[in-house]
């Protein structure tokens, strides 16, 4: 908006923006797009140089999302990569608080006292931004993030701006909550679907058993087992989503080759056949992996591998002859590295870290498979990190390559 515009024009523009704001939760089913659009509209109305929306997970002490308008992606990446929050005394309300000087700490204590949100002044200063108008985002009484407006001028914001910011924050919360609800709906669908499969298969077998060949019965039973496994993993996702305390997990002697890889490939055979492919198109070198004996929670590691391989199958190319997965094992001094390579549709550039975010699904993924919780890789990485390892994407396309890092200390059994 320019200063030459008449009041009437300003009001009409604002009305249009309110209209657009109210449509956001319905128009955008993708959380990232919805939140980014909110920052764009906010920047437009508040004449701010930069508008950022950050979502935080105070319980697990990390920043879960950054949407940003008015700066290039570097700003977003910088905010995202910043350690956050780190100071337990302040219940995580501060960004990198300990890295600030004393005066800055006081400034931000005051901001907190005034009920305003906090943003990282170091980052803001690096981009020549002098003042900040901020609103906290609360969902069901819980702090979930901040909506921040930065300006290069000193104190350019008005009371009207503050009111508008609270409306923006309200819309951001609605978009966030709709996203959470969508996530649950997605998981529910993913539960209903295998349940329908199990129930209909069991009923079909019961009614038609005498008409069916042994091979056919075995194929149907394999379907039932796969659907049951899928259900078990969905329950784990619900556990994760509702942040239930992790169940006590015991470590067992586990052969990575037979207990994890072969078992998972067998579980997934019906999904592979559904794509018109064959499990022999999954190449595993037993010489690589058969020596790999670990003391881990077998079921959890199995879930991580299941998620990776399920994605490789679901997002494979349409032509089944192109379906190929290769699993290799290498090692460094302290780690085993299990490499999962597939020649599927790949992962878009720029999404290398986002794919591990809770609920994130790229538009390409959604085009291929409509429903999905977007939790598989999040949980897989968490499982690996819990045992001191990691899960990393090292190549986006042809092959899509994930590295599962397993510390060599896992070879030692607990006494």
């Amino acid at each position: 908006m320019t200063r030459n515009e008449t009041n009437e024009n300003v009001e009409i523009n604002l009305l249009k923006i309110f209209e657009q704001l109210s449509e956001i939760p319905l128009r955008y089913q993708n959380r990232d797009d919805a939140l980014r659009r909110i920052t764009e509209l906010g920047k437009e109305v508040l004449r701010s140089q930069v508008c950022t929306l950050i979502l935080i997970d105070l319980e697990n002490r990390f920043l879960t999302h950054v949407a940003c308008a008015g700066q290039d992606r570097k700003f977003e990446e910088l905010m995202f990569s910043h350690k956050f929050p780190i100071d337990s005394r302040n219940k995580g309300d501060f960004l990198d608080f300990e890295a600030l000087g004393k005066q800055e700490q006081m400034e931000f204590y005051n901001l907190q006292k005034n009920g305003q949100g906090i943003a990282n002044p170091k980052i803001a200063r690096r981009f020549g931004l002098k003042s900040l108008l901020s609103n906290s985002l609360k969902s069901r009484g819980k702090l979930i993030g901040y909506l921040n407006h930065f300006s290069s001028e000193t104190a350019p914001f008005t009371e009207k701006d503050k009111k508008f910011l609270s409306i923006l924050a309200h819309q951001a919360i609605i978009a966030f909550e709709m996203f959470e609800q969508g996530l649950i709906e997605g998981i529910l669908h993913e539960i209903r679907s295998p349940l329908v499969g199990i129930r209909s298969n069991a009923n079909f077998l019961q009614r038609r058993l005498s008409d069916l060949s042994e091979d056919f019965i075995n194929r149907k039973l394999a379907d039932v087992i796969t659907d049951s496994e899928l259900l078990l993993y969905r329950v784990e996702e619900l556990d994760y989503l509702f942040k239930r305390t992790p169940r006590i997990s015991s470590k067992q002697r586990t052969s990575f080759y037979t207990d994890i890889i072969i078992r998972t490939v067998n579980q997934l055979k019906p999904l592979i056949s559904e794509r018109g492919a064959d499990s022999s198109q999954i190449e595993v070198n037993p010489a690589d992996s058969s020596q790999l004996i670990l003391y881990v929670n077998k079921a959890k590691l199995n879930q991580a591998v299941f998620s990776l391989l399920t994605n490789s199958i679901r997002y494979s190319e349409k032509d089944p002859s192109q379906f190929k997965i290769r699993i290799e094992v290498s090692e460094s001094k302290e780690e085993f590295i299990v490499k999962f390579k597939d020649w599927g549709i790949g992962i878009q550039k720029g999404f290398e870290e986002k794919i591990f975010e809770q609920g994130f699904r790229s538009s390409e993924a959604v085009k291929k498979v409509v429903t999905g919780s977007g939790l598989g890789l999040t949980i897989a990485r968490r499982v690996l990190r819990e045992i001191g390892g990691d899960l990393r994407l090292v190549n986006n396309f042809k092959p899509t390559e994930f590295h599962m890092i397993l510390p060599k200390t896992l070879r030692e059994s607990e006494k």
Partner: protein
Amino acid sequence: MILFIDDERREMDSYYLELELSGYQVRFKTDVDAALIFFDDHLDSINMVILDIMMPPGKIFANSDTKLGLRTGLPVFERLREKSPHLPILILTNVSDTEVRNRFRQEDRCWFYRKEDVLPFELIQYIEEILENPQ
């Protein structure tokens, strides 16, 4: 012939088999583009369509309002209706949204069932009833 349009081939296999074993000629299509091409080419021989709602929108509905595929069945239904106003269409879906259910229940020659409420043999009973009562 019955045209079965659903992206979940494996989960719906028992329904498909039960239809075949009950004597129906069934063509199963997992993507809507192929399904609509097939529909156009076999308009005269298709007696009924079984249609899912949550499916990838494919190329034909890539720019339609399918809510990222969660409601692809809606524009597919409209397209089928344009070509064949009186064809029986049975919606078989996991969608539990009452708005969607009511939307289909207002349509003539259209039946709405949730997958979890229908076993394969029950689907056959419903289809027999529908096909025995042409109007």
